[in-house]
């Protein structure tokens, strides 16, 4: 009964390819997020959706496009992958509002060769 799941867990691909990462949560939360964790473990928010509506869009290249088909899913599509995109990508979810705990998925380890 995984709360926040991501697929795939590992992704190895060549520069220039397009790839997608999927995220699903079964917690009934309205808000979902994508974070990027670099090689130094630094976590940076990329996007946030509330009930399928984009509410946070940090300074992220427009090669990254989130899509939320419903409030339980938030997918991340990346076009024209670059070496610098290699990182761990985490999906998270929470109820909307201040002080709400965010629940994280296990991460997708992306390596661009």
């Amino acid at each position: 009964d995984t709360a926040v799941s991501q697929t795939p867990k590992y992704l190895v691909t060549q520069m220039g390819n397009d790839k997608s990462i999927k995220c699903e949560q079964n917690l009934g939360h309205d808000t979902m997020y994508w974070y990027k964790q670099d090689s130094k473990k630094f976590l940076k928010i990329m996007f946030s959706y509330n009930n399928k509506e984009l509410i946070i869009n940090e300074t992220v290249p427009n090669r990254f496009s989130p899509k939320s088909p419903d409030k339980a899913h938030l997918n991340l599509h990346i076009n024209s992958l670059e070496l610098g995109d290699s990182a761990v990508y985490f999906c998270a979810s929470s109820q909307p509002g201040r002080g709400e705990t965010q629940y994280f998925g296990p991460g997708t380890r992306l390596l661009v060769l």
Partner: protein
Amino acid sequence: AQSVTQLDSQVPVFEEAPVELRCNYSSSVSVYLFWYVQYPNQGLQLLLKYLSGSTLVKGINGFEAEFNKSQTSFHLRKPSVHISDTAEYFCAVSWSAGGQFYFGTGTSLTVIP
């Protein structure tokens, strides 16, 4: 500007010794404070959080943290660490003006047998 600082990037400590991981923030508005733990190759898991009320917060795995408004700190402590506590620890702040999380740069705790 609002920020979160974890001064110690790496903390080695002997098994059964006490440990304190430091977190400071800067903010002109009320905050909500969180500590997350990330075990190797896993996602982030909530250890504890402070929303309001008692400034001493107890979390899972024997950890506790104290909110100090005057020093704008939220240090994490454990009186006796175990090998299994070896992990990356992240302090996070959510400001009352919005629900977005800001994470510190993380502290790598290594427990030495």
